[in-house]
């Protein structure tokens, strides 16, 4: 009896240790990747990297300015289209409760979230690039918006749902019409959470490469014309990483460091927004 009990305790301790091990193993690649980005990328970051566009191989002083500007423009386009749709859909989902129509929209949003981003890229190509006859930042921005909107819808819904019902009832009891109750009381209360959700979603689409491959296509020149092909950080990193030259690889690492800093900065700002809500 006692020996059996000992055996059970040993198994328990071993498996507990194994779960600690699993957590540790998962964190190895995280730190390996972040560390490598700093080690390999930081050395190539200088002023030129941020203010110069790409230069031909052999010349020095080239940078990623065109890619940084392109990413900012396309993420802004995506936000301008995707955020209103996502937030509106999210409020609808939260405010219409368990209605059947809401269930359908919710299921569709989850389905859209599961569609591979490369498929969204194909869609944007057949929908926009092929009819207009050219690659454009518009097509890239719209492809990103298609990824952004369903994510924002689901996080917005969750944030609006967190608002206690008593608040809604109080506003209605004071004679507020429903739309003002919804917008000025419920949504306003949930606003920091909604903003956080939007920023996290923007961080995700900022790193997307696949939907831009044949929509924005990429470019080597600094351009702000949204009707033409445009560079983006992930695209430039990709084409330099798979290229054969050491100089390109060096710049790809630096670009990757900038991209991850952009993504993390958005994430940190997102956390600050919610943090202020908790103590404000």
């Amino acid at each position, binding site marked *: 009896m006692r020996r059996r009990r000992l055996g059970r305790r040993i*198994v*328990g301790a071993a498996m*507990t240790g194994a*779960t*600690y091990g*699993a*957590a540790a193993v*998962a*964190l190895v*690649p*995280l730190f*390996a990747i972040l560390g*490598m980005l700093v080690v*390999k990328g930081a050395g190539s970051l200088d002023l030129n990297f941020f203010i110069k566009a790409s230069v031909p191989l052999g010349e020095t002083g080239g940078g990623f300015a065109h890619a940084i500007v392109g990413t900012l423009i396309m993420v802004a386009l995506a936000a301008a289209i995707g955020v209103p*749709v996502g937030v*509106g*859909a999210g409020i609808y989902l939260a405010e219409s409760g368990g209605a059947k129509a809401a269930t359908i*929209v919710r299921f569709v949003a989850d*389905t*859209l979230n*599961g*569609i*591979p981003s*490369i*498929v969204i*890229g*194909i*869609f944007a190509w*057949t*929908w926009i690039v092929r009819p207009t006859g050219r690659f454009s930042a518009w097509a890239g921005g719209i492809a990103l918006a*298609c990824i952004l*909107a369903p*994510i924002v*819808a*689901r*996080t917005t*819904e969750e944030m609006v*749902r967190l608002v206690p019902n008593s608040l809604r009832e109080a506003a*209605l*009891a*004071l*004679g507020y*019409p*429903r*739309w003002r109750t919804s*917008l000025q009381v419920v949504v306003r209360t949930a606003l920091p959470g909604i903003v956080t959700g939007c920023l996290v979603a923007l961080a995700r689409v900022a*790193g*997307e490469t*696949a939907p831009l*491959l*044949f929509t924005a296509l990429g470019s080597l020149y600094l351009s702000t014309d949204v009707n033409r092909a445009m560079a983006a950080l*992930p695209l430039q*990193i*990709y084409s330099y*990483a*798979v290229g054969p030259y050491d100089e390109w*690889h060096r710049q790809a690492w630096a670009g*990757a460091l900038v*991209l991850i800093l952009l*993504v993390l900065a958005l994430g940190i700002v997102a956390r600050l927004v919610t943090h202020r809500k908790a103590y404000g």
Partner: protein
Amino acid sequence: MTGAPLPLTAPGPPPTVVERWRALRRESRADRVYRAVLTAVAWLLPALLLVIAAELVTGAWPALKTFGLRFLTRSIWDPVASEFGVLPLIAGTLYVSAVAMLIAVPLALGIAIFLTEFAPRRLRAPVATLVELLAAIPSVIYGLWGIFVLIPVLRDTVWPLVRPALHWLPFFQGAFYGPSVLAAGVILAIMVLPYVAAVSREVLLAVPAAQREAALALGATRWEAVWTVILPYGRAGIFGAVILGLGRALGETMAVTMLIGNRHEIGLSLVQPGYTIAAAIANEFAEAVTATHLSALVLAGLVLFAITVVINAAARWLIWRVAKGSAAGSAAL
């Protein structure tokens, strides 16, 4: 709102009370406008899904008409002769994803159990955040790291060590140059890990405390409570989490494209190059010249679309069955 009289005791002229009462009971015109706008915006999402499906079918139609169902069963991929079949791509996609899940699922489950059962309280939030951070790293950065760090480590350090023991297995035949099913599978495992872990954790958190307490009261060790009570209780949800991760793995593009080596052949060897649907689209789409080639790639995209939609629906259903009503899985986005 029910029709029951409301206990309004505030002083004021009767019309005001009636107005308030009306405000509660009936929608004004502004309310209807507000609701109509929200509804219209929300239904843009189903409309988008329909447009995506319609565009893909339209774009794929020429290839669908030419090749029919043979497209799914043929192994030829010849842009010059305009002959296309995606069997190697489908097989490759499934194979790489299976390798990734085989690595990721035990780890993710271990992390979920660690975070819900065994971790000291003060470690839970930071470890959960760090694991979620893995999901924030863009795919192209995984690819970059894979090319310049993971592949050299696998090729120059790991492979020489394990080759003598494993080279007789069909999975380890041939020379290992770097870009391979193995490299892509390992990167993919790291990428889906946070999703599977986050959803599994949610499922385990949804297991009622009474279940755990009952097991412990019967004399089970903490591990036995997990193994015999908590995991079986959340089985369907965990299965859902795994399938959700699989959906991610099947559609993941950039990192796989950069690491898999792009070979249009079916093979068992993990150390040889392979190919996936997403990688083929990413590589060939912008360079496709003929209409048939483009259409075949769109059709491949349609196949991928169909697979992931079905898999996601199945996963959501399984998770929903466990964590009924709660927005399962969304925290992992």
